[in-house]
């Protein structure tokens, strides 16, 4: 379909696009409402909400042949609700008092586990759902055919909104939920059993997600990609509508779905994302907490105070220098595989240190750092292959693409904090991924780019190893140096006490934006080095699991340590290399590692060891 300017669309096709938007909004609203509801009471942003949607879809598709479509939908939703209750009771319940980052990580880990579970249970192929019996025809609207089922969906969203309104405003349970949303401690002191309340809220949220997925099956196939696609859409919706506001979720779902529908209808489906962004930007600038949202109340209880980052002692510096020297000697002793592994470790050490730069001292918890890694990698490939630049120049310029990404995304991100920031970084990474994944003509789509080899003088494993070693060690040293320069101190001041930092004349936002871009630059450099070491690049380089890798590396090492991310990167890269080839469901294993880390070593492994042996 070619693109048609808006004013050339006939009135009837405008109407049809409008109805399409309404129909898509319903399912999106269900997911976003569940997300909002859960966040309101438990203060946890459930990153796995899209995964619950996906489970709902697969379950409905699986149940439909046995029970018929109309039974499979509610049953799938109930099954997802039961699963949600189980997750809450066994896992999340332990985390309500934990730092926000760990809560986010735990639900993030669930995404991986559920994805692999779905893969194991239903296989990698897309599953087509049945049509809805009794609603499989079409009606004529303004002379055009329109599916009956979509009309049903158009009514379904407002119906659920009404039911939720009734539940929250007119029942005792709803009153308790609203009270707990405001002050759960006080509700407890008045005799409200929070455990039960939290479990039931989570179950309802999961039910909505599962239902949102199940009602979609006549419209689109169940795929393994849908979880992250939905969660990033839902994040955009709740950011626009206001986290915690159900009517806000409804309004924003309509807005986003209509935008999508008209972009597609006009033949501009590729710019949907751009338009979505412009809308989000406008909303965030005018109303930072969303259309109907309110500024989040300060949570009660003492905040955690981070220990200052100690300047490394002379001894520690000497030890680090010694290590770099030893790494330089490795090629004399061994070649081949060890060098390939060490190259990987160095690249990921730089990636992890750049993430740590914004997460630890900056306090900006990015759940989409792989976007910059991937932009650097694609930048290298595209400059070499499409731009015809020599390899050295491509390597040097590629990180600038990551810088551009970080400039744009960072502008939004520093306007938010906490869970909003986490949601937005994930949404940005997912969007970057879909651009690379879908733009077949330019980025090679799902196949990626091949033939990204270094110049001949760097083509031996040893030479490339030395290049990587020099670049990464230099870059890491620079990042660490900056943390102990006035910029780093100001960054930490902004993290610990934004108001006071502001008062002494630090422009906290500008500072954080600069940090974001700086970290993006080095993540991009790591990505470019990675691309030339592998000779090819695929969308996996910037997919969500890579962001998870970065988080795990930082977490393994301990977020408030300086050298931790390096050890974390070494350990994880080595582990993945040694173990992943033997395991089919590596993602689930990664998820399990994160869950264990979060539950057992909330300080990170080095933090744990330090606490253990410090006294």
């Amino acid at each position: 379909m070619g693109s048609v300017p808006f004013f050339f669309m006939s009135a009837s096709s405008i109407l049809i696009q409008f109805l399409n938007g309404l129909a898509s909004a319903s399912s999106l609203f269900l997911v976003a409402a569940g997300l909002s509801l859960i966040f309101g009471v438990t203060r946890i942003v459930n990153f796995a909400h899209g995964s619950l949607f996906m489970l709902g879809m697969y379950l409905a598709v699986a149940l439909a042949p046995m029970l018929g479509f109309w039974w499979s939908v509610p049953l799938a939703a109930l099954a997802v609700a039961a699963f949600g209750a189980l997750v809450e009771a066994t896992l999340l319940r332990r985390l309500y008092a934990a730092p926000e980052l760990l809560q986010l990580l735990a639900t993030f880990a669930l995404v991986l586990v559920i994805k692999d579970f779905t893969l194991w249970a239903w296989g990698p192929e897309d599953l087509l759902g049945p049509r809805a019996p009794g609603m499989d025809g079409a009606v004529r609207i303004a002379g055009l055919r329109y599916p009956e089922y979509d009309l049903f969906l158009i009514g379904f969203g407002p119906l659920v909104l009404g039911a939720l309104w009734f539940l929250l405003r007119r029942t005792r349970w709803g009153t308790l939920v609203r009270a707990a949303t405001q002050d759960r401690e006080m509700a407890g002191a008045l005799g409200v059993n929070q455990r039960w309340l939290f479990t039931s809220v989570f179950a309802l949220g999961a039910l909505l997600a599962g239902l949102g997925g199940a009602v979609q099956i006549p419209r689109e196939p169940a795929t393994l990609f849908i979880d992250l696609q939905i969660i990033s859409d839902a994040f955009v919706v709740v950011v626009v509508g206001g986290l915690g506001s159900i009517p806000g979720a409804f309004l924003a779902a309509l807005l986003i779905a209509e935008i999508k529908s008209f972009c597609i209808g006009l033949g501009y489906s590729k710019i949907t994302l751009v338009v979505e962004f412009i809308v989000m930007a406008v909303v965030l600038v005018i109303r930072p907490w969303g259309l109907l949202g309110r500024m989040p109340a300060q949570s009660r209880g003492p905040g955690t105070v981070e220990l200052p980052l100690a300047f490394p002692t002379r001894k520690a510096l000497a030890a680090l220098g010694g290590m770099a020297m030893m790494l330089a000697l490795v090629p004399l002793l061994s070649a081949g595989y060890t060098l390939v592994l060490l190259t990987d470790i160095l690249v990921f050490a730089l990636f992890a240190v750049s993430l740590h730069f914004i997460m630890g001292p900056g306090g900006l918890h990015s759940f989409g750092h792989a976007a910059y890694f991937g932009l650097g990698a694609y930048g290298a490939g595209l400059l070499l292959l499409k731009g015809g630049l020599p390899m050295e120049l491509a390597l040097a310029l590629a990180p600038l693409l990551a810088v551009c990404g970080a400039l744009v995304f960072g502008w939004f991100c520093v306007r938010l904090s906490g869970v909003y920031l986490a949601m937005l970084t994930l949404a940005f990474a997912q969007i970057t991924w879909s651009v690379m994944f879908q733009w077949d003509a330019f980025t090679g789509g799902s196949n990626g780019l091949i033939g990204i080899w270094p110049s001949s003088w760097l083509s031996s494993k040893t030479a490339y190893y030395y290049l990587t070693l020099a670049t990464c060690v230099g870059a890491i040293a620079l990042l660490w140096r900056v943390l102990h320069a006035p910029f780093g101190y100001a960054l930490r001041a902004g993290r610990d006490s934004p108001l006071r930092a502001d008062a002494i004349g630090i422009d906290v936002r500008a500072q954080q934006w600069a940090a974001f871009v700086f970290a993006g630059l080095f993540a991009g450099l790591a990505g470019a080095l990675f691309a030339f070491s592998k000779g090819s690049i695929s969308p996996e380089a910037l997919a969500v699991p890579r962001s998870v890798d970065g988080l795990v590396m930082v977490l393994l090492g301990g977020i408030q340590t300086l050298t931790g991310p390096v050890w974390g990167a070494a350990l994880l890269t080595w582990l993945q290399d040694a173990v992943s080839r033997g395991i089919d469901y590596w993602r689930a294993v990664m998820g399990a590692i994160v869950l264990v880390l979060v539950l057992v070593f909330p300080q990170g492994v080095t933090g744990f060891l330090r606490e253990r042996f410090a006294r």
Partner: protein
Amino acid sequence: MLEVSGLDAAYGRARILFDVSFEAHAGQVAVLLGRNGAGKSTTLKCIIGLVRPRSGEIRFDGRPIQHLQPYQIARLGVGYVPEDRRIFTDLTVMENLEIGRQPPREGAPRWTPAKLFELFPNLGRMQDRLGARMSGGEQQMLTIARTLMGNPRAILLDEPSEGLAPVIVEQMARTIRELKAQGLTVLLCEQNLHFARLVADRAYVIEKGQLRRSGTLDEVREEYQQV
């Protein structure tokens, strides 16, 4: 009715309460007197379970409760009225009362919104008003009413006279005497000696987390004025 013995409490590394022991007898009003930061609120939070004591024992009706969750303690019949009111500002007066509501309890007066509006006529006139739109005094009434909806047998009041006009303070004292007349056990935290005198059967002076003296209000008055 409510016995606290050897209570130690801390926030992180800062120790706040040291071996605090006292008792509130059934159907009486006991007052904890102490200056700012003495540890009064912390003591009440330990009793209702919002702060976990480090050691010591808290018995309600002879039963140890220091290991229970706040909601379990509340369901045994302990009502808690916090010092900073903490009403649900997004909820109406009626909805706030609904949060406190619990099944009737044997040996405790049975409260309904209608009865509470007799006790606090102001609240009756603003049943559908949002908590956010109420004055401080009205909010204070609402916190007490909300707690009474749980039909408690004992009630912990944290400085209910704070920030109220003298007339309202008198009214508050009448309310407390009324609750006592209904058979409720009251544990009251206060700095205001004048107010304490209007209601106290027994008084305890707490200073820097330690119990200094106990007796009738007149007996402890001098001690309190010295600290």
